């Protein structure tokens, strides 16, 4: 059984593509597509890594990142953030909120795979 990646993203075809490449690489992938109850899923699934989109319905990726880092049990959980906004301000905001890796869309599959491997190995 591979390690568990939780993908929180609202674009169905991105979900499908990332799920596919990670599964082929031996990861178990669970997905969730809104911000409202994403924290419940994080707590219930206990993933080894979270891939988090910034623009989500309900709660933003930044809010969720704050929740994750604010939870003692999830402090060390690696988070890879995906966003369509590559502005320095957003990157700084994400880093200040405790993100482990920050990737701007559109990304290459190889980069995502490499980031996921790196983050879990650490």
């Amino acid at each position: 059984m591979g390690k568990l990646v939780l993908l929180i993203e609202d674009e169905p075809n991105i979900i499908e593509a990332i799920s596919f490449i990670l599964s082929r690489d031996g990861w178990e992938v669970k997905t969730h597509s809104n911000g409202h109850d994403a924290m419940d899923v994080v707590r219930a699934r206990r993933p080894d890594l979270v891939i988090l989109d910034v623009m989500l319905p309900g709660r933003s990726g930044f809010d969720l990142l704050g929740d994750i880092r604010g939870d003692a049990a999830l402090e060390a959980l690696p988070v890879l953030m995906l966003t369509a906004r590559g502005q320095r301000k957003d990157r700084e905001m994400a880093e200040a909120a405790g993100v482990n890796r920050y990737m701007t869309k559109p990304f290459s599959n190889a980069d995502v795979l490499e980031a996921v491997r790196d983050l879990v190995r650490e």
Partner: protein
Amino acid sequence: MSESAITGTRIRERRQALGLKQSALAASAGISPSYLNLIEHNRRRIGGKILLRLAEALDVEPQALSQGAEAALIAGLREAAGDGCGAPELARLEEFIGRFPGWATLMLAQFREGQERAQMVQTLTDRLAHDPHLAASIHEVISVVTAIRSTAAILVETEKLEPAWQARFHRNINEDSQRLAEGATSLVRYLDAAPGQEVSGVRSPQDEVDLFLEAHGFHFATIEAGGVGAIDDLLAASDVLSLPASALMVRGLLERYAADAARLPLGVLVEALAELGPDPAALAQRFGTDLPCILRRLGMLPPENVGPVGLVIVDGSGAILLARAIDGFSVSRMGGTCPLWPVFRVLAQPGVPLRMELVQASRDARPVTALAITEPLGPPDFNAPPLVRASMLLLPGAEGAEPAAVGTSCRICPIAVCAARREPSILSEAASAEA
């Protein structure tokens, strides 16, 4: 051109005051009457000998004829010197203008152009950074591109991809490419339709609202007659509202106008005005309406009903929502307004009306009577944030009153000592008093 314009007009005024004919003045200055006529109508720039001879013939100092021009140049170049770099020799400014009037005029014109451009860049930047439609369209396009890129890479890079997966990813790419085409088309359509292609026409929504209100003289006869129903036609007939935001802002203003007009119809208001004069308190008692409604009604009447009148409406943050200037009291959004105005003072005590006699510290200012009050907005509720709006009606100043001095905007305000000052004035009097 406007500088020399003043000179020509002054020559004409002075000649007429002396009762001289054009031909007589032309003869004594040694120029042809037709040339003098061109000068007087500001069609020819003059200086040097001709100016001296005309001044002599008119029995005035040459500076008196050209001073308007020089004063404008001096003030403008001082402002330019304050903004620029390179330590210009301020002490020799007048000498510079005297010796090189053409260069000085050019320099001032370029400085003004630079200011306009800076303002325009700001407007454009604001539009790009805060345009929700643009942000949403771009986000949509990037999302779809991301999905397509990732899916396409899977199709190309995965060895021995099962036919079922392959079919599925093909279908996804097909779907996404259609969405991308729609998103890109909508983005192009939006950018094409965006105003501001003609550079000088770049306006913010607020500029358009101002233009619209001014074009109608702040009064809407069709709403007076037809109520809210007339608003759509007014908006449709306007050629200044090119931005969706400005149409929305104008609609809000007009809806309130219609509500006020319904409470206080024009006919009875004009009748009561004839009897009571523009006295908001007396009018409010007569009609049993609240003061803010009266102030807005009076402030948006045509001059033939109420005489000269001005109106300033601000929100709780001090942003000007509506500004109708009255002669001798200028209201400008550029660079922020003077915090001493009663319209800001009443924000601290909602519901308490304030009447003040004011005069702005500037040469062409005239005293005004300002009547201001703040009203709460929105439905009443406990612990809700206090949303307020303040209105200030401006009428010509009362006889014999001693008006308090206020400014227009700090940058051009000559009042030397002022606790409310937030930035230095560019006018030399105030600057030297502070130093």
